[in-house]
């Protein structure tokens, strides 16, 4: 698995990956889901889209992943955009219940026409990264919610995509599991240096995980503020309890309150 090293570069020196240019999305002629969203994503970024329900976070992800066309505006990928650029993690683990863990992780390769023998090493490697190498032959129903989510993450990173989209992946998990997965996700990110856009409505999650937070407002969905969390990775429990963390969280909360139209 090739490692991209841009994670360790300062934010302003990272090479560009893609750019959303003044993207609008209007449903059935008059419901504005997203208004004039411009976002520059650079290689190695961990960007959180933070906002209340209905702020267009998920719409933005669907547009980036080509599941939806923008009504206006464009998405420009550096060096063009093709199959295999993306890895996706949904709010639910979204595994095929009839397939084993290894078969589920094989899926992106399989759809690209690669046999299991060809990519077995990659599949086992990512399962080791998410700590599930012993469960490669288990079926999803035999796993806990957190483990299923790990399989889902393994599937998203197995092809070493240029960008990973995560749509509130840990929202349905219990607090303890969510903490653990947040830590493990950062560890994973430090190891493989991936670029991530992470949708969440948790201020604390966004501060802990990301180096850039895009705060969004609802009705119509739009970008209200962009904050930088300029703290080095790896981040651990000590970061979570630090004064800097608290300060970042306060800034993000205030931006979110403002976005929701409440006095800061």
């Amino acid at each position: 698995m090739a490692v991209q090293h841009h994670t360790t570069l300062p934010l302003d020196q990272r090479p560009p990956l893609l750019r959303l240019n003044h993207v609008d999305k209007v449903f059935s002629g008059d419901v504005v889901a997203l208004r004039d969203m411009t976002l520059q994503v650079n290689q190695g970024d961990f960007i959180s889209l933070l906002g209340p329900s209905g702020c267009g976070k998920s719409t933005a992800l669907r547009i980036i992943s080509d599941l939806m066309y923008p009504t206006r505006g464009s998405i420009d990928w550096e060096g063009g955009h093709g199959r295999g650029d993306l890895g996706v993690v949904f709010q639910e683990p979204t595994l095929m219940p009839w397939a084993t863990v290894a078969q589920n992780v094989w899926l992106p390769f399989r759809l690209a026409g690669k046999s299991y023998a060809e990519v077995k090493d990659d599949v086992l490697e990512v399962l080791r990264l998410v700590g599930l190498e012993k469960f490669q032959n288990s079926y999803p129903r035999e796993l806990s919610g957190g483990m299923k989510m790990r399989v889902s993450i393994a599937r998203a990173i197995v092809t070493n995509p240029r960008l990973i989209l995560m749509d509130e992946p840990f929202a349905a998990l219990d607090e303890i599991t969510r903490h653990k997965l947040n830590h493990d996700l950062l560890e994973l990110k430090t190891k493989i240096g991936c670029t991530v856009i992470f949708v969440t409505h948790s201020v604390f999650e966004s501060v802990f995980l990301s180096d850039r937070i895009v705060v969004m407002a609802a009705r119509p969905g739009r970008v209200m503020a962009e904050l930088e969390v300029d703290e080095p990775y790896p981040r651990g429990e000590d970061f979570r309890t630090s004064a800097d963390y608290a300060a970042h969280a306060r800034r993000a909360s205030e931006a979110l309150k403002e976005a929701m139209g409440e006095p800061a």
Partner: protein
Amino acid sequence: MSLADEQPIGATAARDEDEIRRARAARIESLAKWVLPVAIMALAILGWAWIVTANEIPHYILPGPDRVWDSLVNDWGMLIDAAYLTGRITLLALVLAVIGGAGLAILFNQSKMLELSFYPYAVILQVTPVVSIAPLIFIYVDSKVAGMLLCAWIVAFFPVLSSTTLGLNSVDHNLRDLFRIYGATRWQRLRFLQLPSALPYFLGGLKIAGGLSLIGAVVAELVAGTGGIGSGLAFRIQEAGYRLNIARMFAALAMVAAMGVFIFAALSVLSHLLLRKWHESAISRET
């Protein structure tokens, strides 16, 4: 739970009252599942024998169970031949219903226009009672076997079609999105996503179709009558009726029922084998 924790150490090793009671209830229930139906059957047969002897009912009106048993033993050769014939038509019709039903479901799923054009006619074919179509079929279809197959197929294919259609459309929408993001072809989506998703639905339809194909075969036999191709169980029932051999009617009826039970059991086992690894319906849970 918390109460049990407070028990002295000696008591924690043993199971508590509640659990023992629950285990006993479970044991009794699993036994009763077999014993009760058998007991009911035995009682019914005894009651039947008693009514026949007590009222001195003549055997050409209602034979006692002993006579039916004798008929089953004495006519076994003829009955088993008949069962073989009816069974063959039933199974062939079921196979054709699976191919036709699942095939149509896949075709309809791939082309909305095809579905819109033909689905209403599949429904019409289904809701028209097969007894009323069968005489027409035997006018236009020369081969009795083909006619009987067609009758059985008409009743059996629809549950396979409708349940498979439902299954193909019941794909998890996130998985569908995932396949799109990874650029899956139509064929890949069908093979790796829709067909496995539809499998439990298909198997449910198959179980219904198994029973229906037997009904179709029996109806077809009754309508086709003696015309040539040997004689199945339904024909034997009819024929024994004409001869006032009521005992043989019951014997043949028992064999039709046994065949229906066998088909249902076989399809249930098949369904369990195919789904046991992953599907909720096949998983037994602790309490």
